[in-house]
């Protein structure tokens, strides 16, 4: 069996710098395509997962997107408030399996403090117990999300205002210190399992604690009581309520019923679908741009390979002069060009996934979303297309090797 690799290796040694240039050019073209595709998929998956427990969200009429972004993804924006009476009707509605009012506004060391009920803390009863400790059982107790750097048993004092300054989460903040609700002292009693959502970096307290802290009472006629049922006349205005309906039909009926009287009700998926559509449009545009980029780079690579071949044509003529078949010299030329393009594609896949992993890590720290990187064949498609085109164009040097005039080339003419 013939061994063209010995000559391919010699060629690579001879044109080391140019070979690296070809590999890097191809790698960049592939990496951009892979990173775009993988990142978009990771973002889509993680945002969907994060919204899984938010079947229906009710809020005051306003921006639906803002309601979802603030409630599900804890983006620090002030939401318009709805009357607290909504809790009463939900509490007696047979279509509602469970519901949880949500209140925002305070922070501890950069972590948002969110008032809610045990129903939502247990994710509608899915958690029998937290990962560590226990669930809160009194107004002055708190549980922390999986990634909150606060120890169990620690006493924390909430401060007014979400995202009070640019201090890193978990770090003491001078600005926070000046806005503390000194009368509210909370004991951390439990740590929740990871959800892969921004709620992993939140501190959850009974909603009554938030109301009390801000001077609105505790939502009940009876002091110290926490959780549903609430006494409607005691409930202050609310930014959001998350509802768990019994059935899909109930969800649609509730969504329809709570879209009146200054309220809005929506499925987070409605917003996400629109978001994904926009993301998809951006991704498609970027993919087309990256494919065009790939075509341009492939063109440049082919030109470079042909130029390199011209520089080395005496070598191919020598092989023929020494008795190498056209198949052998063609194989050397084809493998040489194809090897560079294939190496570029592989390096591009690795670089693309590496870029995606780095970007995911950065986005995770920024948003709290767990952006899982899951390579799949669709992300390798640009690389495969480039490889296919490369394998065809790599035939050019092979054809040129076959058509060489041996006498003229060996004489350097």
């Amino acid at each position: 069996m013939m061994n063209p690799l010995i000559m391919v290796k010699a060629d690579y040694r001879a044109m080391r710098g140019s070979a690296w240039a070809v590999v890097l050019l191809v790698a960049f073209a592939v990496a951009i395509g892979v990173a775009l595709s993988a990142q978009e998929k990771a973002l889509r998956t993680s945002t969907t997962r994060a919204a899984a427990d938010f079947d229906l969200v009710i809020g005051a009429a306003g921006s639906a997107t803002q309601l979802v972004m603030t409630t599900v993804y804890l983006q620090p924006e002030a939401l318009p408030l709805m009357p607290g009476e909504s809790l009463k009707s939900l509490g007696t509605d047979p279509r509602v399996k469970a519901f949880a009012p949500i209140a925002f506004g305070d922070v501890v060391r950069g972590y948002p403090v969110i008032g809610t009920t045990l129903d939502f803390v247990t994710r509608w009863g899915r958690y029998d117990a937290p990962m560590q400790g226990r669930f809160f059982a009194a107004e002055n107790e708190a549980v922390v999300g999986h990634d909150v750097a606060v120890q169990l048993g620690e006493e924390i004092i909430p401060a007014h205002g979400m995202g009070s300054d640019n201090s890193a989460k978990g770090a003491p903040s001078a600005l926070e210190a000046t806005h503390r609700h000194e009368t509210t002292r909370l004991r951390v009693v439990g740590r929740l399992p990871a959800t892969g959502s921004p709620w992993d970096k939140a501190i959850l307290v009974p909603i009554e604690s938030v109301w009390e802290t801000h001077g609105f009472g505790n939502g009940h006629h009876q002091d110290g009581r926490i959780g549903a049922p609430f006494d409607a006349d005691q409930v202050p205005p609310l930014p959001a309520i998350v509802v768990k309906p019994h059935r899909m039909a109930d969800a649609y009926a509730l969504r329809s019923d709570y879209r009146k009287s200054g309220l809005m009700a929506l499925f987070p998926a409605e917003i996400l679908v629109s978001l994904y559509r926009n993301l998809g449009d951006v991704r498609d545009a970027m993919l087309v741009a990256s494919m065009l980029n790939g075509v341009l780079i492939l063109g440049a690579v082919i030109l470079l390979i042909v130029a390199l071949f011209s520089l080395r044509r005496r070598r191919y003529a020598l092989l023929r002069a020494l008795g190498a078949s056209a198949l052998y010299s063609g194989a050397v030329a084809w493998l040489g060009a194809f090897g560079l393009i294939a190496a570029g594609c592989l390096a591009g896949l690795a670089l693309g996934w590496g870029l995606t992993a780095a970007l995911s890590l950065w986005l995770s720290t920024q948003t709290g979303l767990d952006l899982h990187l899951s390579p799949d064949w669709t992300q390798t498609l640009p690389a495969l297309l480039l490889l296919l085109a490369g394998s065809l164009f790599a035939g050019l040097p092979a054809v040129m090797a076959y058509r060489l005039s041996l006498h003229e080339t060996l004489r350097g003419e």
Partner: protein
Amino acid sequence: MGLSGQITDVRLDVTQPNASPLRILDLPHLALGAGEVIGISGPSGSGKTSLLHCLAGLMRPTSGAILWNDRDIAALSPNACDLWRHEHVGLVFQDFQLIPELTVMENMALPQFFSQWRLTEIQKDSLHRQGQQLGLNNLHQRASSLSRGEQQRVAVARSLWHQPDLILADEPTASLDRAHADKVMQALLEHARQHRTTLIVASHDPAVLGLMDRVIGLENGRIATGPAVS
């Protein structure tokens, strides 16, 4: 392809194909005997290299024939001609034509890789012996690190190693000092005598031409002095 033996008869007419055709070689008849050792002399541009390239099938004559046991080499397809060269011809180029990135051993055995994945131990031993015969002791160093004289000897070793029936050498001693030139010529002649190989050497060197059975002088692509026994 079943061709083996010797070039017996050459009739060549080679014209450069351009606007004003220039006749490069015009050899109405040249008989070559089996196992003959022939020198080709002549000034630069007289057609020595073109003749060697025609005999090796690297250049196709405009008309004429190169008979190898009654088969016309000039009429072979490119692939058949490549195979014929691989099996029967050893070439030594004026400018060595080594692959600088390969080792001495890989250069010497390069044609072997056209049909074989790796060298056997027996082949490696044989290469070592031949290298020693030509004063090449380290076969594992890169060709790029060799002196011009060493490179020339590697080129000669490459042409001999597969024991060809026809050796075509273009100025094989041009880069060598006298001692190494003698060593190279001795190896070429020894091979030719032992294997009854036809050896054709193009050279300016009177000492080299003096070792030939006969010398053909070329001038403007034509035989100038006629066959002459040295």
